[in-house]
């Protein structure tokens, strides 16, 4: 019988549902079940890096993780949720309404242990700066699929600077048409068009910030 982490890594939906229920019924500590699920997601990430898995497997495992969390979360004690490896603010920038890439990354970041403040799509620079100030999040992820999003990202980075937060916040931009040229143009610290790589970059930023 596979353990929970293996079942998740092998994308076995029925087995993950059964094991989560079994562990809850046996009185397992809810946070330990979360950790097992995260271990499964880490294995998925490794398989993706090794090119055994593709974006589809990131999506499937992400959906499985969300389903498991929906069962476990109500049982977590107050405060247990708020022990993230880092906070981060995530948004699709002003003028762009694409949500798919951002949503996949939000799920993967949450599974990796980040506390994600997902501001949605078409988000103005001021709203992003306000959330960074309010939460103290040291990482900002901006998503965009269209070329006009470059200007919005640039404006947002300027707004972060104007608010005196730039030296406290690492900025990563992501989307299908991101290139090194775009990353430099908008003033980001990192760019990616790969969801899993984006999570690794955020992990690195979180480690550097500790």
């Amino acid at each position: 019988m596979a353990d929970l982490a293996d079942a998740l890594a092998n994308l076995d939906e029925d087995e993950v549902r059964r094991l989560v229920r079994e562990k809850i019924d046996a009185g397992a500590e809810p946070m330990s079940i979360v950790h097992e699920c995260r271990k499964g997601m880490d294995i998925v990430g490794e398989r993706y890096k090794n090119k055994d898995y593709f974006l589809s497997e990131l999506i499937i495992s992400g959906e499985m993780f969300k389903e498991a969390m929906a069962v476990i979360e109500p049982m977590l004690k107050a405060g247990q949720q708020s022990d993230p490896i880092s906070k981060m603010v995530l948004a699709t920038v002003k003028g762009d309404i694409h949500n798919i890439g951002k949503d996949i990354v939000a799920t993967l970041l949450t599974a990796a242990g980040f506390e994600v403040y997902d501001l949605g799509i078409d988000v103005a620079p001021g709203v992003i700066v306000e959330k960074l100030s309010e939460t103290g999040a040291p990482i900002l992820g901006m998503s965009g699929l269209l070329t006009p999003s470059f200007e919005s990202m640039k404006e947002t980075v300027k707004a972060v600077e104007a608010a005196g937060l730039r030296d406290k916040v690492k900025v990563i931009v992501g989307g299908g048409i991101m290139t090194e040229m775009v990353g430099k143009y908008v003033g980001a610290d990192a760019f990616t068009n790969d969801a899993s790589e984006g999570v690794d970059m955020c992990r690195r930023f979180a480690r550097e910030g500790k």
Partner: protein
Amino acid sequence: MIKETMTSRERVEAAIELEPYDRVPVAPLMDVMFASRHKGMTVAYGIAHWKEGFRAIVDVFDEVGGWDAMILPGYSLSLPPSVASGVTAVLTQGAMIFPGQDTAVSEDSQPQYGETERLTVEDYDEIIELGWRGFVEKNRERFAPFAPEKMIAWTKRQTEQYTKEGETWAERGIPSLCGSIVESPLMFLSTKRSLTAFTMDLHRIPDKVEAAMDAMVDEFIEHAVEGARLTRIPGVMLILERGGGFYYPLKIFERFEFPYMKKMTEAFAAEGLLTVMHFDQDWTLNLPYLLDLPKKMCVVELDSTTDIFKAKEILKNHMCIAGDVPASLSSIGTPEDMEAYCRKLIDIVGKDTGFILSSGCTVPADAKFENFKMMIDTAKNYVPAH
């Protein structure tokens, strides 16, 4: 300036048929977005006013001294006059949010994809039972709540406009490559179910998804062939994005995408129609499979995320490649960056034959005019080392 010894049509045909050309042809995927903004209209206005919007494209053509071909002749749709084709188009277009039609998208934005679950998981059963035509006719009011005669009038008007666009270019000696547009079944279902839901469908109910695709593909082929016949342009654009190696492993591609690509391209070739495969996202992993598609009857159109140099290595004796000036280069690069990139493409991908220099996907709405012109000029002026 290169001494030209061929007409635009001869040059483009040579590239497609893998015969020598006097220079690399250039054919941007130009629609109304960039042209409208360049001519001082909002994108919303250009979309809503076909004559002015199409005129803007022609004006841009004249302003840069012309190019060699239109991949699509403009921005109308080519549709057989039927409720089924109208509903299919509305389902596809309905996922697009156009400037001026929704407050979520500004008047001067380019159309954006608002991906929601327009088809449900329960719809697969009905598609399998009724076929695609039967399914959309039965569900017409759900997807397109217009009277059937209004729907048919709309399809006729779109096709008339499309035909007129093609004729306008033909009068100038400029061929249009695609007389109709169609999505692969995978692309269609993924964008109408949404990427996440469709990916879960492939994981949970693969046999049902495959059966639905089988029930759709022949009618998709019929629509595309009929559209090309009506517009009298012997080619089809096959829209592909979601089935490639960026999203899925080869076992998914081999079962759910490639057999349908093969069936469609072979059916089009049998009708004498060229297939322009519009590949968004990275298909590098899938390139070797394209050798099994009809030789010299397909163009692989890349958007800069697929490795175009690898594509040349693999496909150079089999099919023409078009692309792949990155959107970011057009919008935030410099003319010098553009020239250097186009020269590299001409040197390597354009070597001998089999290449059409083009924008990677459509010319972005916010492309800089000087960058766009540089792409055209480089094709006309740059003498490659080989």
